[in-house]
């Protein structure tokens, strides 16, 4: 069986999973949902067939599992978004269309040799910086929940950091590949680039107040640096610097400090002053700052072993409002955990892990340094981002709002992840094709 035929058979299984999920949501909530909304599942499947056909023509020998895994993750996300808000599901479906288009464009334009990107590395570095700092600009930047991650152009709203991440990985892979031999010697003056990027990560942190993005970017940088030079010294020095910087920002920024306090002590017995739209009131912390996190933890707990079943979870207040703010973006994991239970959410984690395993497998097979670094960098970025958001929701690390790849509601995330997927397939094609 050829790689693409295997991909198709697994995609059909994903289609079956999507239909089961949508049917369950529809039956559980039929007094609220119109039968027409069931067609989203069909549209979704057709989209992935289109992506499959593009892959058949452009990357026939590439890894057959990545596209179905991405499809399954998107399907899980879309099913849950559909259950929470059918209008958002339609919008997310449209974003998947744009994502698949970006996927196809990337594959078609770079199918002959993606390695020419290596010569445009500074262009990628520059655009990564621009994209990262865009939300910090006064007019177009938007502050949501204390972190400046959003950019608004008229009706269009997006998180440029997601695309910035991909550009940054291409830049770092190309740059570190060219400097690999020099850096591997580990002389004191070679720490220059390390300090420069650390400075940038700290600036991002200060400018956007977002610990998650800073951690993500610096983590990706350290991972690629380690892969390029094989020196643990850089990783330990880098981690130390990051901790020092983070401690500094913790002291100076109230937003970051409150995130850490919420993480360590989400529950209080005595009432504390809390800023509400009606002024300062006395409340416990779980009613105030850590409300979202605590409600999300209850949601995960409510799922138990087997979950409530899709469509039967409790996410709204008796009055009709949303129990957890940002449920379909940052907190989609806790919604899925409630409806699928431990058994289902463990499956989700396994699927996320499979994506990472396949990504590193491709990096192992790649025959040239640039491909290896790009592929491992993209995969590591995916893994670290997943860890940061799920770890935050499960109170393993301080919570920062970033998206769960392929699953969360959000256009920029979906598009960026499809480009990431295309990159992995291109490297895989090059490694697998017979010369």
């Amino acid at each position, binding site marked *: 069986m050829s790689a693409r035929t295997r991909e198709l058979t697994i995609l059909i299984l994903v289609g079956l*999973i999507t239909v089961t999920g949508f049917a369950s949501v529809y039956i559980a909530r039929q007094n609220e949902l119109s039968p027409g909304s069931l067609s989203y599942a069909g549209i979704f499947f057709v989209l992935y067939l289109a992506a499959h056909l593009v892959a058949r023509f452009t990357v026939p020998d590439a890894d057959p599992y990545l596209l179905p895994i991405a499809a399954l993750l998107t399907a899980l996300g879309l099913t849950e978004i559909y259950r929470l808000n059918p209008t958002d599901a339609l919008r997310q479906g449209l974003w998947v269309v744009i994502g698949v288009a970006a996927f196809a464009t990337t594959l078609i334009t770079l199918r002959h040799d993606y390695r020419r990107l290596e010569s445009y590395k500074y262009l990628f570095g520059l655009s990564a910086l621009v994209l990262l700092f865009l939300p910090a600009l006064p007019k177009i930047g938007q502050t949501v929940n204390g972190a400046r991650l959003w950019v608004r152009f008229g009706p269009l709203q997006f998180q440029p950091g997601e695309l910035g991440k991909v550009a940054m990985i291409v830049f770092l892979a190309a740059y570190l590949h060219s400097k690999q031999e020099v850096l591997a010697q580990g002389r004191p003056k070679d720490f220059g680039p390390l300090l420069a990027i650390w400075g940038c990560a700290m600036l991002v942190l200060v400018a956007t107040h977002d610990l998650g993005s800073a951690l993500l970017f610096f983590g990706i940088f350290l991972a690629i640096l380690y892969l390029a030079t094989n020196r643990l010294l850089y990783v330990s020095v880098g981690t130390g610097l990051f901790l020092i910087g983070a401690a500094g920002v913790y002291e100076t920024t109230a937003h970051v400090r409150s995130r850490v306090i919420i993480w360590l002590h989400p529950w209080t017995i005595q009432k504390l002053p809390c800023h509400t739209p009606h002024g300062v009131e006395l409340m416990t912390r779980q009613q105030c700052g850590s409300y979202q996190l605590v409600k999300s933890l209850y949601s995960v707990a409510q799922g138990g072993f087997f979950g409530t079943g*899709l469509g039967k979870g409790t996410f709204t207040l008796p009055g009709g409002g949303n129990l957890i703010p940002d449920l379909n973006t940052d907190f989609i994991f806790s919604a899925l955990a409630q409806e699928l239970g431990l058994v289902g959410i463990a499956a989700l984690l396994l699927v996320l892990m499979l994506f990472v395993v396949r990504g590193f497998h491709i990096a192992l*097979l790649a025959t040239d340094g640039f491909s290896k670094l790009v592929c491992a960098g993209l995969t590591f970025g995916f893994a670290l981002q997943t860890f940061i958001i799920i770890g935050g929701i499960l109170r393993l690390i301080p919570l920062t709002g970033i998206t769960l790849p392929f699953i969360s509601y959000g256009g920029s995330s979906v598009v960026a992840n499809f480009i990431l997927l295309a990159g992995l397939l291109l490297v895989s094609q090059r490694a697998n094709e017979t010369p």
Partner: protein
Amino acid sequence: MKMAAASTSVDGVLLALKIAFLFLLYLFIWRVVRAASREMRAPQDSVELAPLAERHEKRAPRAGALVVAASPYLDEGERLELSHEPLTIGRGPLNDLQLDRDDFASGRHALVDPRRDGVWVEDLGSTNGTFVNGVRLTSSRRLAPGDVLRVGETDFRYER
């Protein structure tokens, strides 16, 4: 009463769908893991990152030998040990194995290529064809011990 019956049947359907959904999720994981692990065990040339020369040395520890089984002009039983380098057979002077007295052999007749996964033989566009066990080659083919390779009027037996 009727309402209660309807809601139990809906619950039953939902329970079935829930089980089906979880089952399919794990079926997906099982399929990907099974297929992927099988593929990891299969030999893959591209896993190796060693330079090409080293790869040639390593790739076939024992390539085997071609033994002359029947020939109008070569001694029967003559053994030709295969190295790790590809070997060409033909009438022309540039071949590794030259059959200059064989009028049925073409200038460049066949290629014997020891690879990591065995010794492969390929016809190089000869006029009269290359045969393995009497079957004319249309694409490259892996030799099994005991196979008889016919080039021109000469039969070689492949031995390990």
